[in-house]
């Protein structure tokens, strides 16, 4: 694998995380539990779609095959999407949505924080801009984890269950392969092993304030980074890609 190939893949993965989570969040639009949350979730979705746009545009540039960010976002087959399984998980309810968001936001925050130090100036610049956004995302989802965890008995039970159910998808955030190794060696990428510890402590701190129990580290589901997704992904894509698939080669 060349450096260029690794950089393409690396950027794609980050872009797909933002894209797919942004897509999921935007399903909430107009259905939030309170108007302020409709605004907040839409805002976060907007940030994520913005990040996806920058990252996929850069990935397309690195690839050099004359594709653009929209072709990457809308015209790949399922196997070619490289996002974490966590972010494609369906919304289910506000508790699951916030648990998914929080577990990912903490990762996203520390990932981008490290990435601002990247030797790749484009990635560093995208990370710099994204970090500001993600700082707000973590704050927002942490507050909800605390509110729901330390709220009513019902909300405590529901958010604890949501965290337990999603836990098996968190391990994938820290798995490194050849792509990561090349990127780290080049000073471009982030050492996920280091982030794992930081993530753990950060999550634990919030859980403590939320009176939530940290689940045990059991078997972890993998596959997203290799394009092996959950059964939810196909439905998400058929909806997201519909216009580009049904009306090919048009400007919008």
């Amino acid at each position, binding site marked *: 694998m060349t450096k260029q190939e690794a950089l393409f893949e690396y950027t794609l993965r980050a872009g797909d995380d933002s894209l797919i989570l942004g897509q999921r969040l935007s399903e909430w639009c107009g259905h939030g539990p309170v108007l302020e949350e409709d605004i907040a979730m839409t805002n976060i979705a907007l940030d994520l779609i*913005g990040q996806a746009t920058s990252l996929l545009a850069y990935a397309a540039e690195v690839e050099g095959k004359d594709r653009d960010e929209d072709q990457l976002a809308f015209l790949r087959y399922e196997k070619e999407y490289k996002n974490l399984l966590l972010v494609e998980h369906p919304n289910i309810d506000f508790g699951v949505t916030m648990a998914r968001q929080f577990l990912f936001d903490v990762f996203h925050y520390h990932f981008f924080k490290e990435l601002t130090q990247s030797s790749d100036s484009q990635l560093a610049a995208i990370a710099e801009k994204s970090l500001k956004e993600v700082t707000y995302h973590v704050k927002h989802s942490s507050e909800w984890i605390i509110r729901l965890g330390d709220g009513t008995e019902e909300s405590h039970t529901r958010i604890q269950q949501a965290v337990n159910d999603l836990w098996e998808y968190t391990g994938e955030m820290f798995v490194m392969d050849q792509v990561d190794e090349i990127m780290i060696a080049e000073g471009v990428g982030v050492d996920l092993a280091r982030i794992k510890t930081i993530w753990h402590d950060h999550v634990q701190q919030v859980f403590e304030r939320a009176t939530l129990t940290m689940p045990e580290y059991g078997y972890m589901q993998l596959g997203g980074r290799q394009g092996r997704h959950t059964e939810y992904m196909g439905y998400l894509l058929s909806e997201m890609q519909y216009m580009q698939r049904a009306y090919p080669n048009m400007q919008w």
Partner: protein
Amino acid sequence: MSEKDSIELQKQFQAKIEADIKIEPKDWMPDDYRKTLIRQITQHAHSEIVGMLPEGNWITRAPNLRRKAVLLAKVQDEAGHGLYLYSAAETLGADREESIDDMHTGKAKYSSIFNYPTLSWADMGAIGWLVDGAAIMNQVPLCRTSYGPYARAMVRVCKEESFHQRQGYEIMTTLANGTPIQKEMAQDALNRFWWPALMMFGPSDANSKHTAQSMAWKIKRHTNDELRQKFVDATVPQAHLIGLTIPDADLKFNEETGHWEFGEINWEEFYNVIKGNGPCNKKRIDDRRKAKENGMWVREAARAYADKQKERMKKAG
């Protein structure tokens, strides 16, 4: 309060209105003025909130990343408008949750335009161009409405709406200049939204029961028919410019008056949709009600947590 005092207050109030001095929350105001304002402002707020749904319907299917982002931003603005407007209504003593419940039970209305479905991507263009366009015609005069908080909210709302209107027209322009299938999509959206947009200005002046009093109070500053004509005059040339046809066989330009004369509005449809028979009345209210019900445990948790925090603060001294 004596009758004399009341007459005096009434006089002072009307004098302020005449002098274009804004009425503020703490000022005395006639009960009917307050009620009329609460009705109008919450109705407007409900419209913003329900209005998120037909557009929200296309966010997950937006055809490219830029359009997806712009649509998200637009819907977010609408939620924001809902917030300012509920806040403005609260300065008059209205309760947000009660007002929302009134909408869910059908006691309070929202703009009927949102009871039409969004069936294609072009509808995102048509809504921005026509629906926001019509809304602006209605709302720009409200920036000078006599009640201060409402007028100030409307300044902000109008600024954003006119941005949305331009974005909508730009979507339509892109489609109209696109492939034949895209142009057809744009024309179809215009066909479906044109007449409902004209209906947004409300019944013709002859049948409008609130207009006279609202104009005396300077809550309203133009009649429905005046605004409707203004909208038609502004919009018809825009359609022609991008090669779309207004779906009105009777439409013609009157050289003398300088106005576009248009055909008869189907008022039966108008009243039918208001009565709840539009294609999406049930769906819209169901969706909003379900959002409220599904969010109950979340709001309860937030309240319980806030109470606990207050208690802890108190204990901590």
